[in-house]
């Protein structure tokens, strides 16, 4: 009968905790509060379950919880933890971030000419120069010009955090899944250093040797399907970054020069951005700036 204690929340807050199998003591401690309203526990619970992606799993996905074997022979394989974490993060990004994708094609005629010119020299150095380092360097120059894109929104949506550094994440496919190692301080590195960083990170990623220091904290991510196929795609932002640049396979487009159509090598770029922070005009300017640098690589090198 002697069960008296100081209450930690309203009756509805207690019932909400009971219903959802959470201990009100834990919520009070986590929020550093001595008394909880039902709103407190609801917000806490929703934040938690969003992080765990439970709500979408339990509710939305119930509609596709069907018996596939009823339609023919099947094989079942467990999803590994690495893929599960990636999946949860991507689902959370899609649920939380209102994103828009902006696409355009940019001439890489001059970059290709340049690559031809330095090809032999780099070969002697045991290096090869692809398109990606140019794009990464161009992104770093453009980020410096558009600081609002080199930022993150705080989780509660209350603050915008501007970054005085430029780190660029590069999405890489490995045998065990997708990883995004980061090239640090891209703005302070020349093309050769970026080529070396990329090579180094690719080796580490493939041999599963990436460490904490190689991951996270990027200004923006670039994801390239350039060697494979596809005209366009809409990449998913890697939060808490505000944007991601997708690179598709280069193509040849006819360009009217006033008198005739001439073939021109182009790269399709698709920028997905967080519309909570970046509006369409800013995104267009940013994209045009990157494109301008790619089409005129002398702007990258200076």
């Amino acid at each position, binding site marked *: 009968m002697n*069960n008296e204690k*100081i209450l930690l*929340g309203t009756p509805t807050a207690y019932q909400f905790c009971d219903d959802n199998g959470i201990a009100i003591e834990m919520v009070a401690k986590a929020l550093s509060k001595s008394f909880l309203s039902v709103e407190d526990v609801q917000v806490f619970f929703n934040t938690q379950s969003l992080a765990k992606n439970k709500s979408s799993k339990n509710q939305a996905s119930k509609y596709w919880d069907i018996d596939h074997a009823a339609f023919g022979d099947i094989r079942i394989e467990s999803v590994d933890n690495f893929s599960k974490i990636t999946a949860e993060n991507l689902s959370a990004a899609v649920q939380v971030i209102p994103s828009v994708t902006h696409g355009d094609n940019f001439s890489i005629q001059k970059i290709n000419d340049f690559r031809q010119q330095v090809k032999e020299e780099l070969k002697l150095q045991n290096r090869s120069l692809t398109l990606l380092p140019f794009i990464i360097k161009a992104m770093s120059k453009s980020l410096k010009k558009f600081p609002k894109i080199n930022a993150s929104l705080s989780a509660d949506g209350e603050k915008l955090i501007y970054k005085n550094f430029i780190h660029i994440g590069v999405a890489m496919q490995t045998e065990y899944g997708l990883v995004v190692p980061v090239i640090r301080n891209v703005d302070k590195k020349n093309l050769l250093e970026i080529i070396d960083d990329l090579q180094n990170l690719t080796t580490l990623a493939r041999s599963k040797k990436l460490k904490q220091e190689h991951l996270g904290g990027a200004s923006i991510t670039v994801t390239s399907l350039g060697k494979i196929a596809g005209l366009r795609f809409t990449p998913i932002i890697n939060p808490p970054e505000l944007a991601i640049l997708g690179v598709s396979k280069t193509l040849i487009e006819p360009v009217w020069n006033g008198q005739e159509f001439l073939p021109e090598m182009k790269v399709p770029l698709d920028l997905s951005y967080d519309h909570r922070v970046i509006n369409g005009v800013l995104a267009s300017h940013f994209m045009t700036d990157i494109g301008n640098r790619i089409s005129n690589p002398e702007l990258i090198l200076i």
Partner: protein
Amino acid sequence: MSDQKTKVVVIGAGPGGYAAAFRSADLGCEVTLIDERDTLGGVCLNEGCIPSKTLLHLAEFIQEYKTSHEFGFSGVISNDKLLLNKTREYKNNIINSLTSGLGNIASRRKVKHVKGYAELISDTEVSVNGVTINFDYAIIAVGSSPVSLPNSPINERIWTSTEALELREIPDSLTIIGGGIIGLEMATIYAALGSSINIIELSNDLLPDFDKKHASIVKKSLIEKGCKFYFNTNVLKIETLPNKLTIHCKNDSSFTIDSDIVLSSIGRKSNAGKIGLENTLMTLEKGDIIPVDAQCRTNISNIFAIGDVTGMPMLAHRATHQGKIVAEVISGLKHKFSNEMIPKVAYTSPEIASVGLSESKNDLGIKIKNTSFPWMASGRNLASNGGDGLTTLHYCPDTLRILGGTIVGKNASELLGEVSIAICMGSTLKDVALVMHAHPTISETIAFAAEKALGTLTDL
């Protein structure tokens, strides 16, 4: 072989049982409600809470009437037979209207009411009137009965509260054994009806569950109404003589009390022993108490128990809340019952009521301060001839959060709800003080008590 099948069977139709049955039906379950009585409502409605409050209302009225000479009325009451007949009729009408109301509510919900004595014959079957009913879930809500006096003869002049509430007669002298809440309520009724009252209590004071300062106001008032208290006193035996009962008592010395009627109110005991639990694997504690978890589940996972059979405090509102929780749990919700905020009331004159923590009821050793407002300074109380009273808030001196409340005074039970809400919503003294209370009201005393501690009171 079962003759019938139901999803939920509720055994006992008191305030716990009928709440569980009705809530269960509302949540879509097929429910059978079994009780020995013709009517629903159990002890509470038929021979407990409601009839005692009817008679306490009469007691209050008599008390008021006795002071009416101040307004020019005679203020004299003759306790003749007509009054008693009329009073019984009045009380029974109230009981009938409430029980038939419950019957209507039950049939509207399609709850099947079976009159009979129920006995569990397994974990999934109950037998009633020779019919076996198979159930998915059972809710045991069979309540409690008065503990009978040890070493006492069976005599029609030795009553329990049941006989006292039948209003068989108004004895010249009534000796109440057991000065708990029930005993004191009966003392209040019969003192007003004109009996001279003796109260024999084993412990050294009355109302141990309440703050002393408040309990003493009730004690003073009962003494003024002619009640005589014998504390630290044992009853050795009761001798039945042709025209009186002689009670042999012992405290520091031995003595006897002669009385027309003896009322035994030494407590109530669980009825769990009477329903065939031996045919199940149910475990009991202290002989007849059914231990339950926070969802009122017994050690048998499909059998729940609520109310007095689950032990102290044996209060109707506790049973009702438990009953609703169980119905919700059966329907798949994960609700839990909490013992922490059970209000306690003695409907004496004046009433005394408490909820939450107080200095005397503080197992945690936390800091608690009190702030009180005396009713003698309440305009509304004086204007309505309310008598003595005291409103006290128990609060944390660091955060000023209200942790408990004790109120003594006329209709104190009605005021307690505001304190319960304040505690449950995490209110501080300041919150309560800033809420505008109507003037003049007794409920103002709650805000005044808060203001007193804050130093913002202008009414004292």
